[in-house]
């Protein structure tokens, strides 16, 4: 019985809050924050929510934007497209002005249609699926993170222009992430026309042995290997290549750029290239945001914290520049007004991608990744 009364109490409180919220929100800027806050993928959504809360608390303490307080509307989509559409509908019906989110590409895509109909702008800190901006379907979509194909294009141009590779082999682990990277690389190299893709193949993740594919690499005469996948397979390939005396440059995606790879591959990692997000820790706002976070939560901020912090700053800056929350004025402000953020000084291009946000190439030198200038 006691359990039941508790549930009833909570339910009553929630209902009361739901009624109370719109009443008190007479003249505020309503900033929606949508992403996974519960479930498996919550670690990808919580840092964004915390970043938005921090920015909003700071701005409200300084008197808000254009004299109005900013009100947060937190919405949990669990990264599920079907929940994302419900959440988006709810935010719209409650009169949200601008949304930070969503976090996962699939959920974002599902929600964007609803925001588009309601003429509401959404800025995602993390949805990297290329067509979201490049497809042109969602003029109300912006993001503060680089698209998936950006790093593949960087890897491809680095291989052909900097390393002067002529015959490139591309391997991938058949997963969405690895194959996606490999496909974009192949496309970019073929479009560039400076080198030939002599081999394009999937490998079996978790297999004991890749010697056949490595022998093939040699017999095709490849002078560079691009691998789409994660560090266990990459280090297995590298180890076998060293044992079979095949020495060609190796380029991987950001899945490699981490301590996991350095630890497992050991000395085989030396000289390997990997693309990875640009180093943003040097920006003063980033340093401040991170130290504020550590002071508040006692740990390092999680994934997409920087991007969400930047998205919130960009959104509120746009509201300030536009002098209100009118859809066209906000869009113009986002595309024209430069703003200092945690990922650098950014504005958005016509498609909605942040300019000046992107990837760099790193190389392993004496056991650590160093940026290749």
């Amino acid at each position, binding site marked *: 019985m006691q359990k039941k009364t508790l549930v009833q109490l909570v339910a009553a409180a929630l209902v009361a809050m739901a009624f109370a919220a719109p009443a008190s929100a007479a003249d505020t800027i309503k900033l929606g924050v949508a992403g996974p806050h519960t479930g498996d993928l919550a670690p990808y959504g919580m840092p964004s929510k915390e970043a938005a809360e921090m920015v909003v608390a700071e701005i409200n303490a300084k008197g808000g934007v254009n004299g109005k307080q900013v009100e947060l509307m937190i919405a949990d989509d669990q990264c599920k497209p079907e929940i994302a559409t419900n959440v988006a509908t709810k935010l719209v019906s409650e009169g949200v002005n601008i949304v930070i989110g969503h976090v996962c590409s699939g959920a974002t895509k599902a929600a964007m249609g609803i925001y588009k109909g309601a003429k509401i702008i959404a800025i995602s800190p993390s949805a990297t699926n290329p067509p979201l901006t490049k497809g042109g379907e969602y003029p109300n979509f912006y993001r503060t993170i680089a698209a998936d194909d950006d790093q593949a294009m960087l890897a491809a141009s680095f291989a052909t222009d900097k390393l002067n590779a002529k015959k490139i082999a591309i391997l991938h682990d058949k997963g969405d992430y690895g194959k996606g990277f490999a496909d974009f690389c192949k496309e970019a190299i073929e479009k560039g026309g400076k080198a030939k893709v002599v081999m394009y193949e999937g490998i079996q993740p978790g297999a*004991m*042995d890749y010697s056949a594919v490595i022998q093939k690499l040699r017999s095709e005469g490849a002078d560079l290997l691009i691998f789409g996948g994660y560090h266990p397979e990459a280090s297995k390939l590298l180890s076998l290549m060293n044992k079979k005396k095949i020495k060609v440059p190796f380029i991987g995606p950001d899945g490699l750029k981490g301590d996991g790879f350095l630890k497992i591959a050991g000395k085989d990692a030396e000289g390997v290239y990997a693309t990875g997000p640009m180093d943003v820790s040097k920006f003063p706002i980033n340093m401040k945001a991170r130290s504020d976070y550590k002071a508040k939560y006692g740990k390092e901020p999680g994934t997409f914290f920087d991007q969400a912090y930047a998205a919130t700053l960009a959104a509120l800056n746009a509201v300030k520049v536009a002098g209100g929350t009118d859809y066209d004025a906000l869009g113009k402000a986002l595309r024209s007004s430069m703003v200092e953020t945690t990922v650098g000084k950014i504005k958005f291009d016509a498609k909605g991608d942040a300019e000046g946000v992107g990837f760099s190439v790193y190389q392993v030198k004496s056991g650590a990744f160093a940026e290749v200038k």
Partner: protein
Amino acid sequence: MDFQYLFELLCGGVVKGSIYALIALGYTMVYGIIQLINFAHGEVYMIGAFVAFIVAGILTLTGYSGLTVLVLAAVVALIYAAAYGYTLEKIAYRPLRNAPRLSPLISAIGASIFLMNYVQLAQTPDFLPFPELVADFEFMEPIARYVSSVDLVILIVTTVTMIALTVLIKYTRIGKAMRATQQDMVMARLVGVNVDRVISATFIIGSVLAAIAGVLIASRTGQINSAIGFMAGLKAFTAAVLGGIGNIPGAVLGGLVLGIAETLGAGYISSAYEDVFAFGLLVLILILRPAGLLGKAVKQKV
């Protein structure tokens, strides 16, 4: 036709196949004696690699050279794996010796899941870097593109192990007892063979072979984690069935055929379909020869 490329692929296939064969022997020996598919066999392989990893980590600190460490680590790994094999049989299979055949099979799957998760919890779910214990031999330099130093060690160890196993089964008392138990367990017991001890010995030998394979392949790929046993076990099981399960030369032949088929398929067609070649071959052989390559079709005893 590029014969050099073909030769490179064949060498790779033989190395891979002999590893499959080592693990497949454990499956086939156990099946031959108690008609049980020991699904936890792949996990014993994994545990062998883990024990060797830990021992090698400690020994490397003391400053021994690579091959000494490999041998010492392997010996400890074998003892551990043997103990696991023995215990596994005692706990998971012996109480079900007279149960319907499905029960020990389920027990085996359970034991497999248990061991995998146990290592994951007690050690780590992450990949670990296995030290490179076989240094590059200088005399291997000219042919390293076909057979690397660690491949050579694998081939030698596998061959020696298989010869030793053949001698053990053909010429020793325990080998004779094993063959007797395989033919007829009740009759063997009647003539004074300690069947329980024979079965324990079978598990111990099979586990030792799996651990040898685990140590060898880990020092070749340079990494281990708690899930490596699953795929290795599945492939070795395929090899055992391919050659005719319960038949010892069949397991070796099955392993080699599987390894070479996979490598040639990956080399000439596409490595994306490597597993398709392995399991496709299994289907094909089972259609043409349901008892496997060397297996004898036995009439069901009613």
